[in-house]
């Protein structure tokens, strides 16, 4: 273990991989000092673990109705978080619902940033008219309020998980394009790009292999912080009945179902909201910490 740490902390690394891993290790050490960020990381890790193991750790079937046990309060035997209006165990539904949440986050996280990166780097690298047109389009999407555009899109496409993801992705890519363009502008005239160009590399190769990697840190920070917002929008769509359809245990839809019983059986709406809040807070805490660590503007301190 100590030899690994020594190898990572070696001030004169012998290979590119050693240098890169050493840098990551130092970033990790800085992140570890930030308690709030570590709490965030723990929450996100917990979400992933729970979602991965969901079918095996749910105490009850999350879908099957059991009307004899409907609306049981929390802490009743066998139902730690109580049951909903169809007698389904809320904890089991939350656990299964974590899969849906994670699935939506993952899909948005692999589509929107990639598309935004592509638009931003192309605009920044080529400049001129390409830049002008691409950035105008980006601005138009930025001028739309996110949630309302997502609502209108889902209304057109029809409710459902895939369409919700598509709508969220369409509303989330513009900020990535902005970030990536700004990063591209700072590196596109640097010597190493000129060197690659003199070697005869194509524009596609320069953008893909030499500019996009430079944008990755700022994009990662944004993705982490954005995921909190994505969770909230997805839950909002679910709440309005436009996202994942019942009986799937989507957290936002669960809140909506609990609304009828708010004043008498408060737990039905409260519990899924807590789940959304905790997971979203986790991403926010982690993203905040990552920004402190990875953002080059902060590294001077």
């Amino acid at each position, binding site marked *: 273990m100590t030899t690994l740490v020594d190898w990572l902390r070696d001030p004169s690394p012998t290979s590119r991989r050693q240098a890169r891993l050493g840098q990551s290790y130092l970033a990790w050490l800085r992140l570890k000092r930030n308690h709030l960020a570590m709490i965030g990381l723990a929450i996100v890790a917990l979400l992933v673990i729970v979602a991965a193991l969901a079918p095996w750790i749910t105490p009850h079937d999350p879908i099957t109705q059991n009307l004899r046990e409907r609306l049981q309060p929390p802490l009743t035997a066998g139902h730690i978080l109580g049951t909903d209006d169809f007698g389904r165990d809320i904890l089991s539904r939350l656990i299964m619902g974590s899969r849906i949440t994670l699935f939506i986050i993952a899909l948005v996280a692999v589509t929107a940033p990639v598309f935004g990166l592509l638009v931003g780097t192309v605009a920044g690298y080529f400049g001129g008219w390409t830049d002008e047109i691409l950035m105008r389009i980006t601005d138009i999407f930025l001028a739309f309020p996110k949630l309302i555009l997502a609502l209108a899109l889902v209304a057109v496409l029809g409710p459902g998980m895939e369409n919700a993801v598509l709508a969220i992705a369409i509303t989330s890519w513009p900020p990535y394009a902005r970030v990536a363009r700004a990063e591209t502008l700072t590196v596109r005239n640097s010597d190493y790009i000129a060197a690659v160009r003199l070697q005869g590399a194509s524009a596609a190769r320069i953008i893909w292999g030499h500019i996009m990697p430079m944008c990755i840190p700022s994009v990662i920070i944004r993705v982490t912080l954005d995921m909190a917002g994505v969770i909230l929008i997805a839950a909002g769509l679910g709440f309005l009945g436009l996202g994942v359809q019942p009986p799937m245990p989507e957290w936002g839809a669960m809140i909506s179902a609990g609304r009828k019983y708010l*004043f008498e059986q408060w737990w039905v709406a409260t519990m899924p909201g807590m789940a959304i809040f905790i997971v979203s807070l986790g991403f926010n805490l982690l993203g905040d910490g990552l920004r402190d660590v990875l953002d080059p503007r902060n590294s001077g301190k």
Partner: protein
Amino acid sequence: MGRRSDPAPRLPMTDTADFTPPSRLGVIFRQSAGVLISLAFTFLGLLLVTFIIARVVPIDPVLSILGDRATEAQIAAERTRLGLDKPMVEQFGIYIWQAIHGDLGVSIRTKQPVISEIAQYFPATLELATLGTIFGVLLGVPAGVLAATKPGSWADQIVRLIGLMGYSMPVFWLGLMGLLLFYGILDWVGGPGRLDAAYDMMFQFEVTPHTGMILIDTALAGRWDMFANAISHIILPASLLGYLSMAYISRMTRSFMMNELGQEYITTARVKGMPERRVIWVHAMKNVMVPLITVVALSYAYLLEGAVLTETIFGWPGLGSYITDALLVGDMPSVLGGTIVVGVCYIGLNMVSDLLYKLVDPRARA
């Protein structure tokens, strides 16, 4: 802001001999032209997107008007009347022309023009979002300043945590929890709606709706009992929106203020022996206000949108309720009309903040 006629604004970098401050309004007029052009482009883009959405929608506008028993001839006539037989480009041209003239189509549900319906719903949203923004500024700015003056302290941590929590809570859930606690359990506030049911009837018959904003209208009519009732209804949703806005404003204020407090003119002011309160609230605040204008405008726009989900919770008859109700019955002209109005507010607020920015900060006018 108040000393607009001051010929030599006390700002750094005015020490060059030939420096003549440009006339503020003159420069702003010149720059407004550029702003207006880019504004027009964005507006066209907005319309293009809603046009595309409206044209790919699976709901056939002809069928939704005539029903499925219409004859072929009736359908063809209706298509001609709606202009659906014209080429797409021409249809888009007509669409733009109508939108500029305030014609956002006819609601499928009520057969009323969308724009006049929105005009009825919009003031309620405006009232809510405005009050929310006021709360957000009143709480967020001092909180941000407090956090910036004592970085790393427990106060800083608490402000940061409260802010992060605001970013992480689903607003509709927060609204439900607020209703449960303050209405259901404590009974401190009025429930959903803008007034108690009893006052609601009275309001319709006895108060002239000058503005559509209930607090202003009841105050103008001198009906203070009704005013108090309206306050008890608006206070909860406005506080929730205010919390969201505070989360954003306090965070930005903190980072702006931290940035200013590191500047040399602050050190100078402190060395002169100026009281710390004056250093922060007069000297630093002046420069913090400049970027803060943009932040407040953005958060205002954000609240107009955040109101969509809040309104459904509180039965608030605003634009958000209008859009979501229309959505559930597939009334696309209303949904898209609402989208355009919110989009226009977005663009407008951005422009206003841009112009204010230039009015306040001479450096942005170069």
